[in-house]
């Protein structure tokens, strides 16, 4: 049943790829903004790093889900796992919440963080406020991850 296995791997890969894309774009946006601010005030590196790193979680959630898929289908055991086509589809679909929620929320969290960077440039003491704002966006990536984990856990092979 190679097709089932392929589908399952595709699911894990999608979670990792889309989450990674979302985070890469998000971190990129925040990073650009912070470099601009640091050109004026290099001493802000520490506090800005936090805001730049924040949209990176989506990629981690995607990676983590992909790893859960690997464990689920037993890719690390050394024997070729046997999956039906249905199992493959199930795993593929289970990966979609974290993949898409991560893709979109990563990008938007990056935008929130970028504007947070500008805020910290003017109000260095209010660092945690934009961080919390960004966390509001991240909620949906967390929920996506949660559902992916629950779905993966629920699938009986």
């Amino acid at each position, binding site marked *: 049943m190679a097709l089932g296995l392929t589908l399952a791997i595709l699911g894990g890969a999608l979670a990792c790829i889309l989450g990674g894309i979302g985070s890469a774009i998000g971190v990129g946006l925040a990073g650009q903004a912070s470099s601009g601010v640091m050109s004026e005030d290099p001493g802000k590196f520490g506090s800005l790093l*936090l805001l730049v*790193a*924040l949209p*990176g*979680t989506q990629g*981690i*959630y995607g990676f*983590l889900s992909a*790893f*859960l898929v690997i464990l689920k289908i037993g890719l*690390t055991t050394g024997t070729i796992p046997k999956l039906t086509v249905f199992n493959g589809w199930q795993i593929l679909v289970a990966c979609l919440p974290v993949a898409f929620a991560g893709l979109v929320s990563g990008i938007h969290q990056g935008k929130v963080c970028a504007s947070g960077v500008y805020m910290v440039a003017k109000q260095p003491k209010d660092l*945690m*406020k934009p*961080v*919390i704002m*960004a*966390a*509001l966006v*991240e*909620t949906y990536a*967390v*929920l996506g*991850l*949660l559902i992916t*984990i*629950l779905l993966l*856990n629920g699938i009986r092979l």
Partner: protein
Amino acid sequence: MALAEVKRVQIVAYSHLKTELLSSLQESGLVQLEEANFEEFDLASSSPEASEHEHLLHRLKQALDYFSGQEEKGFLKRLFTQKPSLHYQKRKEVLDFDFRSVLDELEKLEADKNELLGEIKFLERERDFLSPLKELSLPVSSVETTDSTEIVLGSMPLSQFEELQKLAEEEAIWFEIIHQDKRQIHLLVFYLKKEQTQLEQSLKELNFTRLYFTEPIMSLAQVKDRVGDVREKIRKEIEGKRKDVEALDGERRRLAVYREKLMQVHDVLLNERERILSARLLGETERVFYLEGWIRSFDVDRLKNKLKPYFDETQIYFRPPLPEESPPSILENPKPSQPFEVVTKLYGLPQRGSLDPTLPLAPFFFLFVGLCVSEAGYGLIVTLLSLLYIKFAKPKGGLLLFLKLLTLLGISTVILGTLVGGWFGFPIRQLMILDPLQDPLSFLILALALGFIQVWFGTLLKLIDGIKNKNILQSIFVQGGWLLLLPSLVVYLLTKQFLWGILSLVGAAGIVFFASPSRNPLARFFGGLYSLYDISRYLADVLSYSRLLALGLATSVIAMVVNTLCQTALGIPWVGWLLAALIFLGGHLFNLAISYLGGFVHSMRLQFVEFFSKFFRSGGKPFQPFEMESRFIEFI
């Protein structure tokens, strides 16, 4: 749970006591000065002047910045450096130190150094100018006009050189090549004086630029010196000046022995300036002055004690704040929950009359961060590091409070990590009550249950707040209604027992009839019915707590991934163990950082969005007492 009680303090005293009294207030740090009510008592305001202090502070700051730039310390060492301390009563003596002459000397040394650097730069330019001319065969002093011939140094673009050769064949002009590179050619040109005008014109057309030896070069050159000799002299001179610069730097560095003294002076002057400027808040007449401010009721006696020496010549009054006044909000919490004030302050201080949410949020925040990180090893590391930092660096104020919070959260992580997570990715099954990886559903129910409790508790606090603010009937029926409806509905849906259904209906009835205060009974009924729709908000709030599961799982899975990678690395021959150790260290540190960041931020969000929205009204002003400020040293 309530805010600290605040009183308005009013002091009247004779004008000659002004400086002393303000100093005492500053030392005590008990009173937040407010602008006196000038109009009511027909008082004059003054605009104090502290420009001399301003100027000195600026000079001191520059000197201290220089010293701290010179300091060579590792990151860790700087992290653990404590500020020097000074007893506040000794601060007058600090100014006896002749800091002005130290400043003068420092500034003179710097000015000297800058002058030398300027001279060096000039000499370097001269040297560079001479560089293409170093093969000139004549001595420097002999390049000058004679009675009949003009001897000229100059350069021109290489492309025009052929033209010059043609010119030399036709006219009475000779030249000697001194130096030639890819683009330029340097020449020594001779021509007859009587043809000067015409030849100069021709040379100009060939883009020939005449070069002159500058005054300093001429003065350095002795009769027989050639360009090379002059360059050598310049080199030596530059070397000499560089040594002088080093000597000046050395002298400046030696002045670093006064660094601590200057720090003390800076801070003492800083506080003097603040004291002088604070006089703008006073109301004055010819003989007396008047000041107003806020003080914690708790501190009233301490202030009276502090001002005892002036007792005969001052009058002090205390009164509770008037309804139209907005006194500062001061959080007052028992020791164990004090660190959690960090969370409250981040959101904003409570308004006057609102509850202080610190104590109610403390246990939840403690639990939530522990559940989000759920990795006992990380908790241990965080606790130990925070304790070490507190012990050796002795931080103060906000930083200390934050570190205490980290210590507490670390402890929470150790406990919850052992119960539902593991130690560095290795679960200890005997101690676990629940494995979220095996049984995520139970963990989800646990998370939602915690959420339900906090949301319910928030509603209870709103009920208390409402009763305190004399909004008794509506609070009891609406908030009470929710408090009854929510749990009984949950139990009814789970057990389908009739009794619970009735109870939830009773709660709902309270909400329907009291949520909307309209007089029109129909509007009241439908308005109330509509507010039952809030149940969807309660549902959303509780579901939001599911993030506790997701974040907790994320930490354990990443820890597991790190360990799996380590195992794979161990299989590599020879360097496997080293790789594995690096992966283990780096991976777990990375995971620690991101899971604490996530745990902190998301737990905070749960407080701010889900919990505070139930009862908390922020918008209070912080208490900013008139006190000794410390920048470089610590006043004790």
